[in-house]
């Protein structure tokens, strides 16, 4: 089957219509160094050959390590019931509905997702989801700029370095005064922020628990930024909301986060799930789609996409965002996951994660030479260890023992090259933790 939809005869006809001899002449204005000079593509394979080749490639991946990797993406157990529900054909679409009202099931799922996010983070309104956690942070920044009509944005550097990098990429050419503030002792530096926040500050962005796993009550930061007329954006880890004070109770104006932990596997490149919630008074400045519940002409309950005048198919260049879609299937996955867990289940899950992290911390600190990087802080399920040697070397050595030991913080903080970020989920057993500790004792 040809992948170019038009025939050579049609191409000649089109070229003749615009008075050009050849396709090369059509592209004559493109500098030759930018033109692709032939692709080195091997001949086609049969289906069987392709399957064999792909299986061999897939077989080169290492799977089944005992994983302590976190850093924003967490290996939680995914119940089989989840896949059975989300793959039902009534639901199964990756995409936002573009003829929405005919897709009542999809709209109701989005509505339930929004409601679940609001309850999780204790905010008033949520949207239908955004691509991923990093995009959500960026969109929250843009939203704060619209609300405040200001230009300065301050990000604490214990916000995920991946998200900060995404924000820098997105905003690079927008003329925004984007400043990063170094955290101190594992938490946002109050003194530095107090000195930095001004009447030009649109928003301060923090993460809780932050990238180092540290827990913080940022209520004082909310007051600090509100006093100057700015907004507080908090990025959070949804599973932690089972135990921690939600950002909505700390005075956050916009709450965002990465939703992968809500029933999605950790996989390189995603698909992931961004969520976003805010106060009702800011709803018209929020990007993304919003599903609403209403009644039809006969008084029957139904679901619609609402407040669409914010969106680019209506407001064009003045839209709140170029995002006119959502992560349909991932949002569905998240709401099904939360429904399967239930309120009590989420609380128990969060407690189990925290207790396993407690045990792991105690056990790993018995390893000679291992100390806590931020010993005075509180943690949820993740913490930073000081090792007596470079963390990336330790990680490589442990990998041969079938352990993915964690994230080497030296990758983003050069002064922390001996620091290992270790995450625990309910999937890690006492034996797994003891095995990690034992392996560390052997290596160090």
């Amino acid at each position: 089957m040809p992948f170019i939809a038009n025939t050579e005869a049609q191409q000649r006809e089109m070229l003749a219509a615009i008075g050009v001899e050849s396709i090369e002449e059509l592209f004559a204005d493109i500098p030759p160094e930018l033109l692709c000079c032939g692709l080195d593509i091997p001949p086609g394979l049969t289906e069987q050959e392709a399957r064999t080749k792909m299986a061999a490639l897939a077989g080169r991946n290492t799977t089944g390590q005992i994983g302590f990797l976190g850093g924003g993406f967490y290996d939680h157990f995914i119940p089989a019931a989840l896949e059975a529900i989300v793959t039902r054909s009534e639901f199964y679409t990756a995409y936002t509905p573009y003829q929405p009202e005919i897709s009542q099931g999809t709209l109701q799922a989005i509505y339930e997702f929004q409601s679940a996010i609001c309850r999780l983070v204790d905010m008033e309104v949520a949207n239908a989801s955004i691509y991923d956690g990093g995009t959500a942070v960026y969109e929250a920044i843009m939203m704060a700029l619209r609300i405040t009509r200001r230009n300065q944005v301050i990000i604490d550097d214990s916000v995920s370095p991946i998200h900060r990098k995404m924000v820098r990429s997105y905003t690079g050419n927008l003329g925004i005064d984007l400043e990063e503030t170094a955290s101190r002792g594992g938490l946002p530096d109050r003194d530095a922020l107090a000195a930095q926040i001004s009447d030009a500050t649109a928003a301060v962005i923090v993460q809780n628990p932050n990238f180092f796993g540290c827990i913080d009550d940022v209520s004082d930061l909310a007051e600090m930024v509100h006093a100057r007329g700015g907004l507080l954006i908090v990025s959070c880890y949804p599973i932690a909301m089972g135990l921690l004070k939600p950002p909505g109770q700390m005075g956050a104006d916009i709450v965002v986060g990465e939703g992968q932990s809500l029933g999605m596997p950790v996989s390189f490149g995603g698909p992931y799930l961004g969520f976003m919630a805010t106060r009702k008074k800011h709803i018209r400045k929020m990007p993304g789609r919003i599903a609403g519940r209403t009644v039809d002409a006969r008084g029957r309950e139904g679901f619609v996409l609402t407040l669409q005048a914010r969106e680019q198919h209506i407001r064009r260049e003045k839209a709140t965002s170029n995002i006119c879609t959502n992560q349909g299937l991932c949002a569905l996955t998240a709401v099904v996951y939360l429904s399967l867990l239930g309120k009590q289940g989420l609380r128990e899950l969060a407690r189990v994660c925290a207790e396993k992290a407690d045990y792991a911390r105690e056990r790993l600190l018995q390893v000679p030479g291992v100390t806590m990087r931020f010993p005075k802080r509180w943690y949820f399920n993740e913490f930073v260890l000081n090792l007596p040697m470079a963390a990336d070397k330790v990680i490589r050595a442990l990998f041969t023992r079938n352990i993915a030991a964690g994230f080497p913080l030296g990758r983003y903080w050069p002064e922390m090259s001996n620091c290992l970020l270790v995450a625990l989920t309910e999937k890690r057993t006492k034996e797994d933790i003891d095995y990690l500790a034992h392996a560390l004792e052997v290596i160090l």
Partner: protein
Amino acid sequence: MVPKDLSYTREHEWIRVAEGIGTVGITDHAQAALGDITFVELPPVGQELAQGAEACAVESAKAAASIYAPAGGKVVAVNEALEDDPGVVNSDCYGEGWIYKIELDNPAEVDALMDPAAYEEFLAQEEH
């Protein structure tokens, strides 16, 4: 329906000037074209606007439109009643449906706008 005591813009705003303060709203033609107005985004009081600058926006069920400053100045009041009842812009666009008041930098800018007769002619041309 084009009141005789107002000046008009090509973007279908009207302005009424009294003692250096201009009151701004949208015309009957504009409210009819937009349909049921669901939200009026008011400008912040104190905002400085140049003539023709975007001041705020109105949304209807299926459209959003920007409201521009017919003349330059500083926003001194906004019609907060529209926050709860934006439909007033539909029902009384030249009266209770006013949107904001602006302290004019240069009242002569208003003289350059269309008078009622010119605006009626402008509307007639737009229909063609």
